[in-house]
C-alpha cells in the first residue's frame, strides 16, 4: 500500500522510498513495543523486578518514538500506516506467545530489535541519498537507542 500523498508532484521517487521505509520502521517499532509490553506483563522468575522495569523503560521509549516517526512521515506530506492488522502485516515479525522462560523473552526481543535496526539502517541510507537530513537524523537517533538496548539485552544473557 502506498502511503504517499495524492499529489505526485509533491514528492519524487527517492522521497517516496524514504516514506515507505519510514513506515516500515514505524510498523517494526509498533510491533516491538507490543511485544516488549507483553514481556513486561508476563515475565516471571528470579529476575522479575529488573526485567519488568527494563521492559517498561523500553516500551515507553518506543511509544514516544512511534509518534515521532509517524509525524516525520506526515511532515514529508505522506500518510502514516496504522491499525494493528496493517502494522503487523507490514512489520512481518514473528510474535512470541507467553509464557516463556525469562531468558527467551530477552532473546526474542533481541531478534526484533535487530530487525528494527536493519530497517532503520536502510532508511538512514535512503534518507541520506535523498538529502533528507532530518529523517537521517531521526534514524540515527533511533539506531543509537536500539544499539544501546541490544547491548543491554545481550549483556543480560551473557551475565546470567
Amino acid at each position, binding site marked *: 500500500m502506498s502511503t504517499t500523498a495524492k499529489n505526485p508532484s509533491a514528492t519524487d521517487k527517492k522521497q517516496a522510498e524514504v516514506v515507505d521505509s519510514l513506515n516500515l520502521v514505524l510498523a517494526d517499532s509498533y510491533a516491538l513495543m507490543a511485544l516488549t509490553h507483553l514481556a513486561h506483563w508476563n515475565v516471571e522468575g528470579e529476575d522479575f523486578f529488573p526485567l519488568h522495569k527494563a521492559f517498561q523503560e523500553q516500551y515507553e521509549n518506543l511509544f514516544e518514538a512511534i509518534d515521532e516517526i509517524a509525524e516525520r512521515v506526515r511532515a514529508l506530506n505522506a500518510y502514516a500506516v496504522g491499525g494493528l492488522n496493517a502494522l503487523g502485516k507490514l512489520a*512481518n*515479525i*514473528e510474535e512470541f*506467545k507467553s509464557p516463556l522462560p525469562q*531468558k*527467551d523473552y530477552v*532473546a*526474542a526481543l*533481541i*531478534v526484533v530489535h535487530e530487525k528494527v535496526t536493519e530497517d532503520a539502517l536502510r532508511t538512514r541510507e535512503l534518507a541520506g541519498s535523498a538529502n533528507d537530513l532530518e529523517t537521517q537524523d531521526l534514524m540515527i537517533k533511533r539506531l543509537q537507542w536500539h544499539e544501546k538496548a541490544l547491548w543491554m539485552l*545481550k549483556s543480560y*544473557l551473557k551475565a546470567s
Partner: protein
Amino acid sequence: MISANCLSTLESDCESSACRWRCAIEVIDELLSEHSLITGTEADDLLDLRWTLVQADDAEATLRLFCTVRRRMEQRHYLAFFRIRRWLENHMMAAVVLRPGGDEKLVSLKLDHYCVEALRRSSLCFALQTGGVIDRPRLRFCFRQKASRQGVTRQTEVSTKQLV
C-alpha cells in the same frame, strides 16, 4: 532471515518466504569462528550438527546432536541456541501415527526440552490433543519440506499453536 549460505546448502529444505529466523548453519558458523569461546570437543560437536543439517536426511540424529550440544553450551551462548532452536522449529516436524492404519499427522516441534525422548513425548501429547484413540503409536521426526514431498498432506498438519 535465510542467508545465502543456507540457501546453498539446504535449498530444498528451506522455505525462505516462511522462515524469519537466521539460518541455523550460519549461527553455527558464527559459533565456530569464536575460537576462544569454544572448546575442541564443542567444535567437533558443532561440526557434526552442521553436517547433519547440511545432509538433512536424519532428523532424529540432528535433534539428538542438537540436544547434546545445547546441554553443553547453551548457558554460555544462550542467544545462539535460541536462534538455532527457533530455526529448527520452523524446519522440522514430528510425523505421528496414533494407531495402526491411522493417518499420519504432522505436529509442529516445540524444542522446550533437553532430550529427544522428552521431545518425542511432548509431540505425541500434542498429536493426541487433536482427538483419536492411541494404540501402538509411531512417531518419527522429519524435515518439514521432505515430509511434504513424501506425500503427507498439509491438511493433517497440526500446529502446536492450535493446541496450546
